[in-house]
């Protein structure tokens, strides 16, 4: 196994920021489509949400594989131990949700009994039985996980900003510039 590097490599940083914007955008789009008045003119937004969500699922898997190849560095020292533990737990939760949120969305869409189409033409296989009861349960799961994701992201961002603005210890800088 390669020795952990001193900083974040370019692939790790690009993945982090592309996915961060992608996830927040997909969250906003999901929350919007779930509440809009659906008609012919905006039906495509469901497809957009699924398409970007599926791309994010693929990127999350690529990110996990990449971290196996090039492990990210450990945290910069400074904060008390409980904060370090919290940050580690938050990172683990973020990975679980990077997989769990899109998979639950895919399952929820499958349970509708309609084809799950991404990029306007690619039909994903159904990963849940077509049933209104299953769809309702999975809709609740996808919604719950998505909002839980937002909560963990806010905690994560608060921690990053605390170190960037409060401690000024270079944590944010090394995720931005390496």
């Amino acid at each position, binding site marked *: 196994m390669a020795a952990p590097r001193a900083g974040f490599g370019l692939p790790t940083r690009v993945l982090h920021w592309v996915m961060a914007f992608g996830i927040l955008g997909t969250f906003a789009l999901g929350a919007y489509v779930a509440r809009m*008045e*659906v*008609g*012919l*003119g905006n*039906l495509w937004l469901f497809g957009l949400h699924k398409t970007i969500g599926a791309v994010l699922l693929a990127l999350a898997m690529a990110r996990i594989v990449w971290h196996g190849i090039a492990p990210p560095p450990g945290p910069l020292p400074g904060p008390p131990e409980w904060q370090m533990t919290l940050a580690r737990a938050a990172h683990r939760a973020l990975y679980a949700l990077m997989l769990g949120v899109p998979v639950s969305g895919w399952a929820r869409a499958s349970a509708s*009994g*309609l*084809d799950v189409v991404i990029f306007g033409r690619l039909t994903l296989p159904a990963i849940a039985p*077509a049933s*209104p009861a299953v769809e309702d349960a999975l809709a609740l799961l996808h919604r719950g996980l998505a909002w839980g994701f937002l909560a963990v992201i806010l905690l994560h961002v608060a921690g990053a900003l605390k170190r960037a603005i409060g401690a000024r210890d270079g944590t944010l800088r090394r995720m931005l510039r390496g």
Partner: protein
Amino acid sequence: MRRRTFLTTLSAAAGVLCTAPAIAAARHYSLDTTQSTVGFETDFGPDKITGSMPVIRADLAIDFRNLAASSVSVALDATAARASFPFAAQALKGPRVLDAATYPSVTFESRAVRREGDEAGIDGLLTIRGVTRPATLHAAIYRQAGTDPGDLSRLTIHLTGALRRSDFGATGWSDLVGDEVRIRIVARIAQVA
């Protein structure tokens, strides 16, 4: 799509009635499936979803002298239903709406035919998803272009009606798609006997 079509009826445009030669009994007609459509329409947010279903079978008998002796029996192919966009067609045929895999046809059998001014009212039994409910269609008969007044051998019938899909248990996507389904049928028929 050549087979879209169907239902029908009888009715009597007053003009047709007056100029009709004396007719002893009901005339039987066959449906020109290539020139007829069984269409429907429902609300989808600010828009509409339209669609159609092909006719499997249509038996029509019209007695212009005595409308009440007329009858109509029609079967539609639910498995070949079409809708204005792909998701709607899939949803329509799927288990939450028509459940075409279990109930491949939609049928209408007239029970009573009445005159309604220039038009006819057809009370009958509509079966969707295996659930049978009373339904009424309103029919207006027209002479086809190029035929002589009084020629009853080829006619065009416009039928309209509405149903509530929830009455038949076809409740899928009721949060997005309207409950009322409006039916619009253009039937071009030719006399066979």
